[in-house]
C-alpha cells in the first residue's frame, strides 16, 4: 500500500538544472516507467526518490509523508541497479540475506525468506555460488531477489536489464512483468528503451532535458503523443514528421506535404480543428508508418509515390517513399514493394495522423 508523490522537485548539478519542476503522483501497486534519453534526468529522479541524491527543492512524499530529508535507510525502498551491485565477496544466499541481516532479523526468518524468494525467482540451485560465477541474467535475478526479499514499500529499478543482451533482455522483461503481477508492489522503472517501457508499464512518464513531457498509459502515449518529442521517441520505426499545409478542395480537406504536387484527402472536420494553423511553417504532420497505406494500382485518394529504400524485417517491410521534398516511411507486407525505384500509390489514414504546431506541441486533432 504505497503511494509516491513528487511535488515541484528541482535538482541542480552546479549550474545545470537536471530536474525542472517535476510533479508526479504514483498510485499504489502501479508499475511506472520513467522513459527518456540518457541525461534527461530520469535516473537522477529515481535516485532522488531512493535518497541517494538530495533534491534542491520540492517534496517527495511516500504515503503522504515527506521523506526528502530522510536517509535512504529510513525510506524503506528497495532498488535494483544497472550494474547489479551484488556484493562480490558473498554468495548468492548471503547477498539476498544481506538486507534482512542488516536489520538483525532472526536466523530462521532470514532463511525462510531467502529460500522463498529464491524459489519465486527460480535461483534456488544458485544460492551457494558467488556472483562472479553467474551469468548476467542470473545476476540480475539475484539483484531483484535482494530487493524483493524484504518486502519494501516500493521497488526502484534503474535500467535493470540494460546490460544484458537482446535475447536475455526479452526473457527478463517477461519475468519482471510476471513478478510484478505476482508480488505486486509499487514500482518505478527507469529505461531509455521505449519497447521495454511499452511492454512493462501501467503508465509511462516521458522526460526530456529534465522536463516531464507526458504521463499516460502506453496506449495513450503511443496514440496521442502530446508533442513531437514524445511522438518520435515512442514507437519503432520512428513516426514520420513532415512539414505540411492544409487547404480545402472539393468539400474535403487536403493535406499537402511540403513540395508535393498533390495533397492527401482528409475529412472536412480537420479544417475546423487546426485553429487556423494551416500554412507550411506553422504546421507539422506526424504519421506512424502503419498509417501510410500502400498499394500497387492507382485508386481513389491514393497518390503516386516512388519507393526509395526498402528495409525487409521478416514479418514486414519498412519502405521509404519519396513525396515532394520529404520521405515517408510506410509499413507494408513483407516483399510487397519489389525494389527501390518502383512506383506505387500511397494514402494516409486520417485516424493515424497527428498535427503539431511550429513549437512541436500537439494540436490535439483526433479524426
Amino acid at each position: 500500500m504505497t503511494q509516491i508523490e513528487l511535488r515541484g522537485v528541482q535538482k541542480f548539478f552546479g549550474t545545470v538544472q537536471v530536474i525542472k519542476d517535476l510533479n508526479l503522483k504514483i498510485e499504489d501497486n502501479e508499475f511506472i516507467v520513467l522513459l527518456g534519453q540518457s541525461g534527461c534526468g530520469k535516473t537522477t529522479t529515481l535516485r532522488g526518490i531512493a535518497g541517494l541524491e538530495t533534491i534542491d527543492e520540492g517534496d517527495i512524499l511516500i504515503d503522504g509523508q515527506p521523506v526528502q530529508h530522510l536517509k535512504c535507510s529510513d525510506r524503506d525502498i528497495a532498488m535494483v541497479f544497472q550494474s547489479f551491485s551484488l556484493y562480490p565477496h558473498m554468495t548468492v544466499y548471503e547477498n539476498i540475506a544481506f538486507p534482512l541481516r542488516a536489520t538483525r532479523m532472526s536466523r530462521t526468518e532470514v532463511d525462510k525468506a531467502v529460500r522463498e524468494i529464491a524459489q519465486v525467482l527460480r535461483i534456488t540451485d544458485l544460492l551457494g555460488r558467488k556472483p562472479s560465477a553467474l551469468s548476467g541474467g542470473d545476476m540480475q535475478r539475484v539483484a531483484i531477489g535482494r530487493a524483493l526479499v524484504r518486502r519494501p514499500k516500493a521497488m526502484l529499478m534503474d535500467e535493470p536489464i540494460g546490460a544484458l543482451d537482446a535475447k536475455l533482455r526479452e526473457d527478463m522483461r517477461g519475468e519482471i512483468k510476471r513478478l510484478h503481477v505476482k508480488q505486486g508492489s509499487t514500482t518505478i522503472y527507469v529505461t531509455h528503451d521505449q519497447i521495454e517501457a511499452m511492454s512493462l508499464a501501467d503508465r509511462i512518464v516521458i522526460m526530456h532535458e529534465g522536463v516531464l513531457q507526458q504521463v499516460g498509459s502506453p496506449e495513450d502515449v503511443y496514440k496521442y503523443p502530446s508533442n513531437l518529442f514524445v511522438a518520435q521517441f515512442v514507437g519503432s520505426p520512428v513516426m514520420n514528421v513532415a512539414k505540411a499545409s492544409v487547404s480545402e478542395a472539393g468539400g474535403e480537406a487536403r493535406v499537402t506535404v511540403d513540395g508535393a504536387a498533390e495533397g492527401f484527402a482528409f475529412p472536412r472536420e480537420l479544417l475546423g480543428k487546426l485553429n487556423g494553423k494551416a500554412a507550411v511553417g506553422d504546421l507539422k504532420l506526424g504519421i506512424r508508418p502503419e498509417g501510410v497505406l500502400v498499394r500497387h494500382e492507382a485508386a481513389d485518394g491514393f497518390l503516386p509515390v516512388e519507393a526509395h529504400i526498402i528495409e525487409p524485417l521478416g514479418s514486414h517491410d519498412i519502405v521509404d517513399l519519396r513525396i515532394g521534398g520529404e520521405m515517408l516511411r510506410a509499413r507494408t507486407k513483407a516483399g510487397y514493394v519489389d525494389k527501390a525505384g518502383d512506383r506505387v500509390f500511397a494514402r494516409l489514414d486520417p485516424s493515424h495522423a497527428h498535427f503539431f504546431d511550429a513549437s512541436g506541441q500537439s494540436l490535439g486533432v483526433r479524426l
Partner: protein
Amino acid sequence: MATAVMTRLDPQSRAAARGWSDLTIRNLFVIPTILFLIVFNIFPLIYSLGYSFTDFRASTNAPANFVGLQNYRELLNDPFIWSNFAITAKYVIVSVVGQVIVGFGMAMLLNRDIPLKGLLTTLLLLPMMLSMAVVGLFWKLLYDPSFGIINYALGLGTFEWLSNPNMALYAVALTDIWMWSPFVMLLSLAGLSAVPKHLYEAAAIDRAGPLYTFFRITLPLVAPILMIAIIFRTMEAFKTFDLAYILTSQPTTELISIRLYKMAFQEWQTGRSCALAYIVLIMILAITNIYVKYLNKVKER
C-alpha cells in the same frame, strides 16, 4: 617467448650498426644485476649455511671444525634465545597491530572528498621516507626525559621512556608505528578507493548501518590488500634491528636480530650465529607462508 614480444630494433640505430640484437641489449642490462645478486646475496646465503654446521670463529685463524647440528641443538635449547624470540614476538604484535589500526584509520579518513587531499597524503607519507638511523636519533631526542618534547607536551614530567625496562620496547614500537603507519595507510587507501561506490549505495538502500557496512562490505573487500601490507610489515618488524639498536640498549629490547648481531660481531661466534640466522629465516618463511595461504583464501572470489 620473451623475444617474441620485444619490438624490433630500428635498423638505423647505433646498436644495430654495432651488430647488436635485442637479446644482446637485454643481456647487457640483466646479467650485471644477476651477477650482483649471486655474489652478494646467494653465495653468502649458501656459504653461511655451511658455516652454521661448524664452530668457525671469524676472529681467529683456527680452522673450522664440522660439528653437525650441535649449533642448532644448543640454540634451540637456550632459554635466553627463546626470551629474545618472545621479545621479538611481542614487538611484532604491538607494532603491526598499531600500524594497521593507525594506518587503516588514516586511510578511512582520507578516503573522501576533502580539500588538499593530495598534499595531506604526501605529508603523511614523509616518515616512511626517512632513514631508520635518522628516525632513531630523532626519537631519542623526542623521548628524552629532561628536555624531550613528548614529556613536555603530554605533561609527563620526567617519565623514562627508553631507560625504563618495562616501557622501552613499547617506545621502540611506537616509533615504528609512527614511521610505518603511512605504508599501511597508502596500501589501504588504494584498497579503499577500489571498492566500487555503488556497493555502498546498495548497502545504504539495504538499510545497513555504518558499522555493519564497514564490517561486511568495506573490510572484506580491502582485506586482500591489507593482508599484503600486514605481510610486509610483519616481515620487516621481525627483522627490526637499527631502530631498536639506536634507541635503547635495554635487555628487554634485545630483539632476535640484535642478539644475532652481538653473537656474530661482538662475541665472534660466527658458526653459531649463522645457525641462528637460519632459524630466524625459517621462522619468517613459515609466518609469511601462513599469511600467503590466508591471502589466497581471501582473494578466492
